[in-house]
């Protein structure tokens, strides 16, 4: 059963990922990205990370990709990009080589070090065994607001900075349009 889930989700992830890089239309690329994100969310559930799965969908699919689409529509750049022409002839083969190289290296590292992965922490509380549905969330909350509370605060600041920065970036002062 778990295998079925894995295979289906992996297929979603890979098809989506390939779609992102081969679909010429940005909207289609964004749709493929959603497919990948959903696959990843399913993987999260299979790994007992329910909360993250939900957040994955809410944040990534619900906000980030919506923003992408919003920008695409706002700018009207939804015309298909011509993928057949390339500015540097060497770019694509090079990219393929680099990509394959990265994949190969990481896979090799994973395979060679698989025995080195050992149980380090106190273990994940899983609802099936504990019998409390919220256990994963509680554990995560304790971690975020306990051990990593400084990181949490810094991230909040980062978000605020991002919001303010974006507002400044896109604000159009009257008269500045003439400058170009």
């Amino acid at each position: 059963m778990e295998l079925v889930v894995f295979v289906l989700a992996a297929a979603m992830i890979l098809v989506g990922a390939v779609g992102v890089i081969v679909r010429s239309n940005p909207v289609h690329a964004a749709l493929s990205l959603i497919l990948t994100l959903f696959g990843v969310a399913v993987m999260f559930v299979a790994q007992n990370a329910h909360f993250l799965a939900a957040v994955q969908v809410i944040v990534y699919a619900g906000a980030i990709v919506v923003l992408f689409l919003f920008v695409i529509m706002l700018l009207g750049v939804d015309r298909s990009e011509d993928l057949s022409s390339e500015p540097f002839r060497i770019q694509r083969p090079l990219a393929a080589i680099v990509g394959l190289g990265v994949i190969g290296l990481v896979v090799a590292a994973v395979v060679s070090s698989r025995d080195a992965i050992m149980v380090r922490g106190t273990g994940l509380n899983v609802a099936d065994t504990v019998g409390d549905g919220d256990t994963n969330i509680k554990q995560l909350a304790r971690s975020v607001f306990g051990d990593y509370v400084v990181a949490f605060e810094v991230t909040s600041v980062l978000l605020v900075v991002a919001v303010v920065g974006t507002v400044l970036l896109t604000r159009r002062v009257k008269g500045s349009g003439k400058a170009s």
Partner: protein
Amino acid sequence: MTAVENVRQTNEGAQEMRSRSEIGARELLREVGAVLRMSEAEAANLGQIPVDPDEDQTMIINMGPQHPSTHGVLRLMLELQGETVLRCKPIIGYLHTGMEKTGEELTFLQGGTNVTRMDYLSPLNNELVFSMAVEKLLGIENDIPERAVWMRMLLSELNRMSSHLLFLATNGMDIGAVSMMLYGWREREEVLRFFQKVTGLRMNHNFIRPGGLAADLPAGWRDDVLSILEMLPPRLAEYDILMTDQPIWRERLQGVGVITADEALALGTSGPILRSTGVAWDLRRDQPYLRYDEVEFDVIVGTYGDAFDRYAIRLNEIRESIRIVYQILDHMPLGDYRIQNKKVTPPPRARIDESMEALIHHFKIFTEGFKVPEGEVYVGIESPRGEIGCYIVSDGGPKPYRIHMRAPSFVNIQALPHMMRGGLVADAVAVISSVDPVLGEVDR
């Protein structure tokens, strides 16, 4: 340049709004209303900017002729930046049926059936202005029986109510208050039911004729009118609660579609649009016709010239009309409802059997129509939408040589681009609604 050459130059698409890269600065300036809105220096400054089509992503969108809120077949070309309206160009003519040409083919007796179809929301006012113009040409305008005059006032004011009620309905609908739509129609229905009782038709009555009216008021008319007058005020109070007091409603209309008094005058607008800018111009009071100088009523004016003022003016004009109708009920005299002029009015049916002369008159009026002396005349009255005027040239025959109707909506529509500029698409809808154009009258 002769006219014929000019025609050849205007090819398909000439009416349409063109993209900024295709037009010069002057044309652009005119379209955004520079003539009215900006100081010369400001306009000149604007004109010097080279228009770079890539600089801003604008979109030209057609609102209409098939759009739910363009009140028929009005077509607006809007240039949008995001949702902000930069330019607007009204394009009309989709309902053009050549009524002025048809009017030249119909006798003065039949003419009523033609003009009544122009502004189909206030048909009685159309008939009234036509009849008054014909009567002026005939020289009988002072001989119209009192009862006919007061009946005309009664019908005209009731028609104003029904027209304004429909405005409230459509305005509510355009802003998204769906119930208001039905309430407006509901109340208008009561008025139309009275019209149906009087004239036999709900609209396009052909009831007000040159020389008087087609028939007398039916039995029980006073009770019917009174029931309408008693029904309306509480309903209007409901509208106040539903819309006037509603903060969303105010937010949607206040400060939207603003026009100043100078602009409104220069553009020739009349009626509630002109009055919303603070100009108290109402032909009923300022150039009294019928017996409007004998009744008491207030001319409702606005202050800000925005869509809310125009809404409030129409709402309160219904109240004023109620006031007038009460006075009409008090005044309504007995007597003839048609002028006793054998050339204009067909004889009573009972006389046909008695008198050969009456039969001849009957035949003459219904086949050839009555002849109207040579001359030309313009009569303007206050229709619910503004000044409706009738310009008739007669060559002495039974048919008008030229009949021209000054349609208030046709003129008012020109104010749309000036009111819409800088607003959002939703504001554009509110503005169209607040101008309340009737396309039958615009295109004629």
